[in-house]
Structure formats: C-alpha cells, structure tokens
C-alpha cells in the first residue's frame, strides 16, 4: 500500500515539477533546449559518479546542473558562430549524450545504472531507495529531490515572475527597460536541469522531455494568461502521471512510457476539442 503511494506521489511530483518548468520553455520557444538538456544531464550524472562514487542526491544535482548549463552555453556559442540553432542543438546534445551512454557502458558493472535505466527510469524501484540518516529512513530519495526541485521552481518563478514574463514576450524591450536577460536565461536553464535530474531516476532522461514539453504545450492551447499556462501545465502533468500509472498497471507495461503516452493523449484532446481553437471545433463551426 505504502509502496503504491510512493510511486504515485513520485509520478505526480514529476508531472508538477516538470510541467511548471517546461511551460516556460514552451512559451520561450525553447522546447528543443529542454530536449537537449534532458539528454545531456545523463553525462552530468555519470560525471558526478566518477567524482563522488555515488549516485546520491547532491553530487548528482551539481553534476547535472553543470552539464545542463554547459549544454545551453555550447548551443549558444555554436549559434553565435553561425551554426543554425536547430543543428547546433542537435550536435551538442547527441555528442554529450553519446559520451554519457559510452561511459555508462564502461562503468555499468559497478553501479546500478544502465542504459535502459537512463532511458526509461526505474520508478518501480523508487520506494526502496530511501533517504537514510543515522539508520533512520525518511522516505524515498526521489521524493526529496523532486520536492526540492519543485520548491526551487515555485520560489524562483514567484520571485522573478515579471522578469520571466517580460523577457519571454519581448526580449528587446525587456533589455531596454533593464531586465537582466542573460541572468533570467540561465536561471531557467538551471531550473530545467534541476527538474530533469530530480525526475531522472523515475522516468529516465528521454521521457522527461515529454513531461517538460507536452503539458506546457497543452496548457498553452487552453489558456490565455501567462500564470494560467504555468499552473495548468503543472495540473496536466499530474493528470498525465496518474493516468499513465493506471494504464501501466492495467497492461503491465513501462510506467514512464505510459505517462509520456498520456501527455500525448491529453495534448491530442486539447488540440482537437478545445472550445476556442480546437481543430474539430473550428471545422464544425465553419460547416454550420
């Protein structure tokens, strides 16, 4: 019973944390940066293992944020040197991800971390990997890390709400009136890295992308206010996590994969049926 509770809680926290952070990236038209960072974070995690010989919370967070920021930085450098932005993203993330996968294959025997884990996560094992302090268990580590990432996201968005909004809508005007553009950019990159690494154990590197981008895009279709998009995106992430969990139990398939599939299903529903500009609704209204 407790076991199921922890898994569902973890799934919901992934949906909420990634949904909130990801919606900002969708609005900034940086979805593919989310894709890139969630791949390369793998390298950060492996790197952290090399340094600290553990897959523990703090070194992992640091390693992941470093590589996450490095990804964003490299993409920008290539971009400025004249490489078109999508190709720059493609080269950077595939290189770093390939490196991460190779390193995992080399050290694979020493740690509980293999390429499958990196791709799909092991949410089923989350309840066993608890936070131990002085022999006392304080609940799963993943829940702690996700909780931390969620609080950090909420805090930073509350503090810098205006700046994030302005730099997203009209970056040039924002610079002119004194919004620190670069700071906000890397702040968001850090948020994405944190959210990604906190979710990594549960849903894996690649399926984090679904949790980051798809709820944000769905909320964007349904809402007309900046704040509403962020909140709704978190809610949609949670719903997708719950539905995905139920679906995976029903058919005995990958939990993370099911959650990603459910985000897609929710997006499809919004795309076709949302009352303002859904495809079907538009078609119907032009016919009658």
């Amino acid at each position, binding site marked *: 019973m407790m076991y199921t509770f922890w898994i569902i809680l973890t799934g919901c926290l992934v949906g909420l944390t990634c949904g909130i952070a990801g919606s900002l990236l969708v*609005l900034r*038209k940086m979805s593919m940066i989310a894709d890139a960072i969630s791949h390369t974070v793998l390298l950060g995690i492996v790197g952290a293992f090399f340094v600290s010989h553990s897959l523990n919370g703090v070194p992992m967070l640091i390693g992941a944020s470093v590589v996450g920021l490095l990804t964003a930085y490299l993409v920008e450098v290539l971009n400025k040197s*004249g490489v078109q932005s999508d190709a720059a993203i493609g080269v950077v993330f595939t290189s770093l991800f390939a490196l991460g996968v190779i390193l995992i294959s080399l050290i694979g025997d020493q740690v509980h971390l293999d390429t499958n884990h990196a791709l799909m996560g092991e949410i089923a094992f989350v309840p066993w990997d608890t936070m131990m302090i002085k022999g006392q268990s304080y609940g799963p580590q993943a829940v702690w890390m996700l909780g931390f990432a969620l609080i950090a996201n909420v805090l930073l968005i509350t*503090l810098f709400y*205006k*700046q994030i*909004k*302005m730099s*997203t*809508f*009209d970056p*040039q*005007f*924002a*610079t*002119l*009136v*004194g*919004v620190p553009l670069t700071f906000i950019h890397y702040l968001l990159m850090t948020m994405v890295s944190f959210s990604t690494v906190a979710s990594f154990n549960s849903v894996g590197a690649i399926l984090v992308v679904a949790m980051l981008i798809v709820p944000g895009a769905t909320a*964007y279709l349904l*809402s*007309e*206010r*900046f704040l*509403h*998009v962020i909140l709704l995106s978190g809610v949609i992430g949670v719903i997708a996590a719950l539905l995905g969990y139920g679906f995976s139990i029903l058919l005995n398939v990958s939990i993370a994969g099911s959650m990603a599939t459910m985000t897609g299903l929710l997006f499809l529903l919004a795309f076709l049926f949302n009352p303002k500009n859904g495809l079907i609704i538009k078609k119907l209204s032009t016919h009658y």
Partner: protein
Amino acid sequence: MNAITVQQLTVVYDKQPALEDVSFHVPKGSLTGILGPNGAGKSTLIKAMLHLIPRKFGHVNVFGKPYTEQKHLIGYVPQRREVDWDFPTNALDVVLMGRYRQIGFFKRAKKEEISWAKQCLEKVGMLAYANRQISQLSGGQQQRVFLARALAQNASIYFMDEPFAGVDAQTEKAIIQLMKEWKKEGKTVLVVHHDLQTVEDYFDHVLLLNKKPIQYGETQRVFNLNNLEQTYGGKISFLEKSPVLIQGGE
C-alpha cells in the same frame, strides 16, 4: 541643445557592413524621420543606438552623457511583427511592462501604476480592450497597445520602428496625435519611416540613410529629389509623378 549625438556608429553582420560610420546630432524637441531603401539599415540604426545589437564601433550620447547612463530616458516602439502575439497575456499587462522601472525589481504593480497604464490605453483609444487577449486584437490595435506601452514609459526620447506599417486610419491618427503631443512637451522622437508621401507632413527633420548617412537636417532643406536619388540610387522614378514631392522639393 542636442538630445542625441551619434558618432561613427558602425555595425557589421557576418563580415558585411550593415552601417558604416554613421554620425549625426538630433536636436531636442525634434521629430525625425529616418528614410532609406529596403536594407539600408534603418532598423539596424535604431537598434544599434539602443544597444540592442552588437556594435563594431561608435558612441551614442544622450543629453551629453553616454547612452548606458541615460537608458531610463528612452522609450521604444518596436516593429509589431517582432513579437509573438499569441503570447498568453492581455493588453493592460503589456502596457504595464512599460512601467517596469517604476514598479521595481521584486514588487508587483500597485494601484497607481495600473491606473497610469489604463490612462495610457485611454489616450490611444484602447481602454475598452484592456482585458482582451492580445492575439484577438487587430494589427492596428496591437500597434496602439505598443504605443500605450511607450507612453507608459514616460520617456524623454522616443524611438519608433515603422509604426505606420499596415495600420488602419484610426491608428495612424493616434500615432500622429501622439507625436505632436510629445513634440509639444519638448520630447524628441525618431521614427523609421517608409512612406515618402507623408514625410513632409509628419517630420521636421529627416535622416536619409543608405548604410552611410546621406544627409541629416531640417526636412525643408534636406528632403529633395537630388538627395533622395542619392539615397535610393535612382530607384525612385515613380516619385517624379508625386505631386507632394515636386511641390515640396526645391
């Protein structure tokens, strides 16, 4: 007194010069139209003056001090198509962005700021649309929201990038009225402009630009066929039919 002094401003895009050695002074309280053919670097010039794009060389002074110290005196109306109007927000919110400096880094907008923003919307005839999602506004209405945002900045110098492009008559009237008001209050206005027919009605100063400055000065003195041909490189044969220009020319 000069509101703006530009010295030897040079901008290079991918090794191609976009602006070469541009220098001119803009007197305080003037209405300047920036004219030139497509690709002459008109938008590039104001963006470089506002430090929004990297400059290879050159200085911009505002009221005798470097631009970076005087940023708070500047208001800006960018081209409408430079932002994504699907962005989830409403008209009032966009105008409030003009009050960013006054509201403060961590604070939320107070009542006074909101009522200030509403007044600005009122001035451009957009108060009724304050809570409208911006994608549901027409092109002209979106332009007026941008005008209201600039108005909310309460600046001393205004830069406008093609404000008249693709707007309705009502919006055009609003822009002209605003420019006149600003001039009356002693504010300085620079406008990137396209339509040669209206230059003499709108502006008292003209900058003719084609990568290099061709001429800067009072409209009556500078805006003539000879200078225009030099700017547009003989591509203005259609202009000879324009009665406005012939009357207004030398």
